[in-house]
C-alpha cells in the first residue's frame, strides 16, 4: 500500500485543534464509539477492543498516541476503521478521532514535506502537510502508526513493567 492516496481522495478528521487526512483506500468504515473492553497489560494508547459485527476490533486512543491531552468522548467522537499492515498481516484497526469532517481532494503537489520543528507532538506518523484553502491538513501515514516496533515492542515493555512491580 502506498502512503499516498492513488485517487487523491482523503478522509479528513479532527483531533484536538489539528486536521488530519487519511487516504480513503485505507478507510473501511466509520462507527460510533460503543462499549470498549480494556485489555490489561497493553500500552496506554490502546483503548481496548470493541465488537464490530461479531469481530473483535482493536481501538487506538489516537490522542494519547499523538501525545495530545486526553478528553472525554463527545457526541462527535467516532472510530475510523482502517485496514493496515502489521508484520505482513493485513488487519483492521479502529482509531478514535474527535470528529470526522469530509472526503477532500488533495493533489500530490499540494502536499509539502513535514516541518521538523514547531509541533508539540510526535510527527513521525505524518507524510506531509497539505494546504487546502486557509487550512493546513496533516497527511497521516497510517501504516507507520502501526509499525512493528511501535505496538508489539510496547506491548512487551508493559508486561515487563508489570512483572517488576
Amino acid at each position, binding site marked *: 500500500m502506498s502512503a499516498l492516496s492513488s485517487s487523491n481522495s482523503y478522509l479528513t478528521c479532527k483531533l484536538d485543534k489539528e486536521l488530519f487526512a487519511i487516504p480513503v483506500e485505507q478507510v473501511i468504515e466509520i462507527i460510533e464509539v460503543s*462499549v470498549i*473492553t480494556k485489555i*490489561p497489560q497493553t500500552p496506554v494508547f490502546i483503548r481496548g*477492543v470493541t465488537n464490530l459485527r*461479531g469481530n473483535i476490533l*482493536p481501538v487506538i486512543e489516537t490522542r494519547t498516541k499523538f501525545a495530545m491531552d486526553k478528553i472525554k468522548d463527545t457526541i462527535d467522537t467516532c472510530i475510523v476503521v482502517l485496514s493496515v499492515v502489521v508484520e505482513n498481516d493485513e488487519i483492521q484497526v479502529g482509531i478514535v478521532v474527535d470528529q470526522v469532517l469530509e472526503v477532500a481532494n488533495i493533489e500530490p503537489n499540494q502536499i509539502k514535506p513535514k516541518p521538523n520543528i514547531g509541533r508539540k507532538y510526535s510527527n513521525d506518523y505524518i507524510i506531509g502537510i497539505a494546504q487546502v484553502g486557509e487550512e493546513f491538513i496533516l497527511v497521516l501515514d497510517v501504516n507507520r502508526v502501526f509499525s512493528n516496533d511501535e505496538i*508489539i515492542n510496547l506491548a512487551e515493555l508493559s508486561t515487563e513493567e508489570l512483572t517488576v512491580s
Partner: protein
Amino acid sequence: MKLQNDQINLFLDEASELIESMEKTLLILDENPKNKTAIHDFFRGMHTLKGSSSMFGYPHLSDFAHHFESIYDLIRNDELDLNKTILTASFSSIDHFRILLSDAALQDIHHQKEHEARVKELNSILKVSSVIEKKETSLFDEDDEPTESTWHLNLILKQDFYSKEIDVLPVLESLQSLGTCSFVINDSEVPEFNEFYDAFDCKISWDIILVIDATETTIREQFIFVDEEIELEIIKLSSRNVLDNSYLVNFIEAKKEASKGLQPFEFIQLHEETKNKKAEDIHALETEPDSEEDDHSASKNVETMSSIRVHVQKLDTLLSLVSELVTAQARLNVFIDTSSNNDLQEVAEDIEKITRRLRENAFSISMVPLSTMETRFQRLVRDISSNQHKKVQLISSGLDTELEKSLIERLTPPLLHVFRNAVDHGIETPEIRKAKGKPEVGTILINALYSGAHVMVEISDDGNGIDLEKVKQKAISKGFFKADAAVSENEILDILFKPGFSTSETITDVSGRGVGMDVVRTALNQMRGDATIESKAGEGTKISLRLPLTLSILDGLLVSSANQKFIIPLQFLDKCYEIPNFTRNNAKDDILIIEGEQIPYIDLRDLLEDSTNRPIIPSLVMIRFQQTKVGILIDHIIGEHQAVVKSLGTLFRKVQSISGATILGDGEIALILDVNKIITEYVTLTNLKKEVLI
C-alpha cells in the same frame, strides 16, 4: 494432454493416501511376512501408484514403483521370500515415495542421492532374486524379459499426405516387425459418402498399441521418412507387456470394430481395473485363514466410498460461520428475554434448538479419529525397537475417539515423543526382560477415551519404570527440593515435567524415562490440556494426556471486575468464595486466609488499574494448576458460560494474561483469562522475591 492443476492435486492426495495405506500393509507384513492378502494389497497399491504417477508426469516415482512391483510380484508368486532386508528396504522406500511426491524432478541434491541409493538397493534385491529365478525356471527367461514395454502411438496423417503420394503401409509393416502390434483406426473424421467431395480432405488416424523391446527413439526412427507428413504422439503405457491381460485384448478388439480410435487414458484405466480384478480372482481362490482381515479391508472400502473430500478451508469457513450464528443467537436471546411476544419467543426457541444442533453437527464434521495417527505410532515403535534390538508390541484401544483435526496435528509431536521415550528408555532389552521374569516382548498400550468434555490419551508400558528415589536425589542435587523436605510421590514425578530437570545424558541412568517431558507438558498446556505421569519402579510407566475436544468452544465461569467481564476456564476452577470485610493490605504480599490456608491472590482490578467502586463483598475464584493454587479476586460471579473463542489478533499477541475473547449475548466482549500463564507468572514472581529475600 495438458493436465489441470486440481487433477494433479487430486492425484497427489490419492497417492499420499495410497502410500499411507501401503505403510499400514507393510506393518502387517512386518508381523507376519507370510500374509498373502497383505502381499497382494501391497503389490496392487504399488501397481496403481506406478500407473497413475506415470500418467501425471512423475517418471522417477513411476520408475521406482516399478522396481518395487517387480520385487513384490516375485514374492507373491512365491519366487522370492519376504525377508527382513526387503522389509527394511520397503519401509525406507515408503519414506522415499513421499519425497518423490514432493520433489518429482529430484531437484534437491540430497533427494537425488537418496533416490540413487534406493534404486541401487532395490536392484540388488532384484539381482539376488533373478539368480534364484534363473536357477529354478530358466524356461521362462524369455517371457519374463523385463525390458519389454507397452506403448501407445497416435498417428495422424496430415491433410497433404495423399497429395504427396507417400505410402504409409510400409512404415506400419516395419513397426509390426519390431514387436506385437495392434492397430485401431479412427475414421470418425472421414466424411460420409454423400458429402464426400474431396478425397484429399479425409483425415485418418491410427491408435497403435505396441509391445516392443525398444526406446521411444527407436520407435520414432521408424517414421523418419514420413516425418513431415504425419503427427505422431508416443506414450509409454507400461514398462512391461500388458497384453497378457485378456480384458485388454478384448478391449482392443472392440475398439478395432468401432474404428473410432483408442484413448490411451481409457486403456490405462481398464488396465488398472482389470489388473485388480485379476488379483481379486486370485484372492477368491485362495481361502487363506486370515479371511477376517479380508472382511476388514472390504468394510474399509465401503467407508471411503461414503465420504467426500472437502477442502479444509471450506470447513473452517463453515465453522466460523456457525460460531457467528451462535453469537447472533445469543444476542437474540437477550432481546427475547425482554419481549412479551409469545409467538416471537416460540420462533426464538426453535432457532436456538436448530443453532445448537447445527453447531454440534458442524463441529463433529471437523473431528478426526485418533486412528488416523495409528500408522505413524506403529512405524515409530517398529523403527526404534528394531534399531535398539528390542522386541515391542503396540496395542491400541479406543482409537476411534475423535478430536478436532487441528488438535490431532498438534497432539502428534508430543505423543510421538512419549512413544519414543517408552521404547527408548522404558522397555528393556529381551535379555534383561528375561532375567527379570518378564515376557521377552515388551508391550506398549495406547488407550484413548472420552471423559466429559475432554479426551484422555494414556500411554503405558511394562518397562523399567521410574526409580523415584533416584529422581528425588537428583532433584535435590539440582536444587528442586531441600534435602530434608518431605515430598510426595506425585511431587517427585511432577519434577520430570520441570524444564531443565532432565537431559538425555543424565536421564537414562537416573530414571529410565522422562526425557523432554517438559516439552510434552508445554505442548499439552498450549492446547488447554495437561500431562501427568504415574510409574512403578520395575513395572512400568503410564503417561496420561488430557486435552479438550475442541479449541473453539470453551466452558468457563463468567465473572466481572471493574465493570468488565472475564471468563475463567472451568477446567482450572477449584472453588469460589465470598470475601466479607475485604481490606487490601498493600504493605505485604497479597495473601488471604481461606479455610485455614494461606492463599496468594491476584486482583483483577490491578491488571485493569482501576480500584474505584469496589463492592463491599468481593469474590475470590480459586484456580488450581498442577500443585499451585492461586486466587483471583473479582467483583462478582455472573455464572457459567459457554464461550466461542476468538483470537485477539496480531496486535495483542504478546499480552500474557489473556488467551482470547468471546462476544457475549449483549454484544459486549469478555476476555478469557489465560490461567496457565497467570499462575506461571505468579510462581516465577514469588520465586524472584524469595531469591531477593535470601
